């Protein structure tokens, strides 16, 4: 009798312990589930499935329409170009900035000011400041004292609406170089202090120990940050809205314009465009998780 109830008690406790992590994960899982639900519903709408309008047939029509748009190629090309250029600049600049902070053994205050402040700043405000500085009537063109140069600058310096999008790239660079640096600097300082020293002890030059020891170990973190920046800049709307040209528009802007169409059926079309955006971002997500797994394996071996 006693043995039976002891076993029963043990079984109950084992079950409680087994279920505990699921209960703990519930709130975050709920939030993530809402997010996934929203994205999935959106993607399905792109395939023509909108139960609220009685549309239940799976179709590729809207995607075909989206891809057939005359400005589609220009739009996705522009989005990819902006995203690729800004993330590449962010990666190179960020790693370089992290190296600089590590090499000069920057104090906390310096790290805060150079990294945290840009990270805290809203993208829209950076766009505003870039306009203040580089627009036709901006500070930079005013600084060029020579009137001839000034008038040339006024016409050449059109950061708002310039098709090359260099103003947009400038905003992303301002924001994302510190972000990549932030993600990398902690590891770099740690590695540089411990393993870097070891490499120096064994006779390696600072350059050699940086490239063959420090950089590879920081690579996963840097790649993760790069992927986040790429995905963000690809799907971002605000900066392009503020500084982008009338043509070509990026994919998210296109999608939002169609989304605002009063005809609800047009929503499927908008979501097809969004679906393409999501697809590109999902690819970058895959790269992120591979980098994360590499990092975890590294952490395991570094112990």
């Amino acid at each position, binding site marked *: 009798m*006693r*043995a039976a*109830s*002891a*076993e*029963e*008690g*043990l079984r*109950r*406790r*084992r079950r409680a*312990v087994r279920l505990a992590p699921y209960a703990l994960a519930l709130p975050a899982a709920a939030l993530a589930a809402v997010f996934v639900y929203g994205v999935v519903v959106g993607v399905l709408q792109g395939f023509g499935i909108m139960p609220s309008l009685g549309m239940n047939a799976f179709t590729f029509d809207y995607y075909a329409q989206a891809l057939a748009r005359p400005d589609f190629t220009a739009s996705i090309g522009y989005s990819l170009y902006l995203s690729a250029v800004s993330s590449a600049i962010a990666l190179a600049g960020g790693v370089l900035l992290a190296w600089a902070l590590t090499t000069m053994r920057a104090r906390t205050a310096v790290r805060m000011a150079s990294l945290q402040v840009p990270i805290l700043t809203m993208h829209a405000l950076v766009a505003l400041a870039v306009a203040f500085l580089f627009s036709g009537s901006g500070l930079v063109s005013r600084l060029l004292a020579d009137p001839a140069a000034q008038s040339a600058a006024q016409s050449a310096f059109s950061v708002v609406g310039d098709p090359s999008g260099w103003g947009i790239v400038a905003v992303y660079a301002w924001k994302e170089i510190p972000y990549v640096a932030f993600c990398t600097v902690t590891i770099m300082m740690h590695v540089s202090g411990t393993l870097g020293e070891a490499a120096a002890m064994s006779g390696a030059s600072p350059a050699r120990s940086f490239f063959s020891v420090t950089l590879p170990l920081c690579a996963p973190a840097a790649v993760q940050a790069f992927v986040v920046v790429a995905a963000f800049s690809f799907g971002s709307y605000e900066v392009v809205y503020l500084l982008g040209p009338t043509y070509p528009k990026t994919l998210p802007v296109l999608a939002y314009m169609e989304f605002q169409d009063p005809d609800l059926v047009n929503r499927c079309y908008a979501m097809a465009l969004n679906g393409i955006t999501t697809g590109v971002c999902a690819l970058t997500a895959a790269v992120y998780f591979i980098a994360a797994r590499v990092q975890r394996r590294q952490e395991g071996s570094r112990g």
Partner: protein
Amino acid sequence: MKIELDDIRVVRGGRTIIDGLGFTVPEGAFASILGPSGAGKSTLLGVVAGLLVQDSGSVRFDGQAVDALPAHKRGVAMVFQDARLFPHMSVGDNVAFPLKARGVAKAARRAEAAEWLARVQLAGFADRRVQELSGGQKQRVALARALAAHPRALLLDEPFSGLDEALRDAMRQLVRSLHEQTGVTTLMVTHDAMEALVMSDTVAYVHEGGLAQVGAPVDLLLHPAAPCVAESFGGARALEGTVRAGAFSRGSLQMPAPGVADGPAVLVRTAAGSVAVHAVEGGGAHAAL
């Protein structure tokens, strides 16, 4: 409180860490779980404490099965290898923590905490911050804190491993004397054979998840039931103690040493594997057993 372990099995990640282990710790006894690292000793203690759930088997306190009870309802307290003092509280608040958990009023808590600190020879440390303490002091606070919980059993998980040799002896004596003062059933995990020998009333030797031998320290020393038990008492260390009226004693280890003169003596393992007691000064006579 009598502690009974009955056929405990623990499997983690496909590996059987503890396989059908069982023994009894009588009321008020000081028991040691001895064995090499990785043998499953700490896991066993975790099962007794309620931190880990066993896959089968039963833990009984005074005959009552406690398997359904979570750790905080079992009435046991534990001292860990790394002290685990709460860094955001003062020393006094740390010791008073279990009293607070039981709803004791503030003034009474502080008074009792001060008492326990005095008992571990840290009188007046109540207002110090945890970060200021040395390793030995931290362990003493941990000990005071565990005892302030008025536990039915005290569990110690290799409490002296983190301390240097000189401190360890003083700490062992402290623990032993507290045990004698309070009479609380104590279960200690250690990999140091001499430590187990000297401090315990009963020793359970755990090897690869199973029980190799259990009994009084003398029995393990003189009549090892398995080669692993015999080997663990080997090594160059000699145990110092005293001989009185033909019996060698050190701590709670007592064994007959006929023919050895009274006074300081050492216990050594001979090359042949047997145990001998030699008097330290002059004497000359020794007994081999």
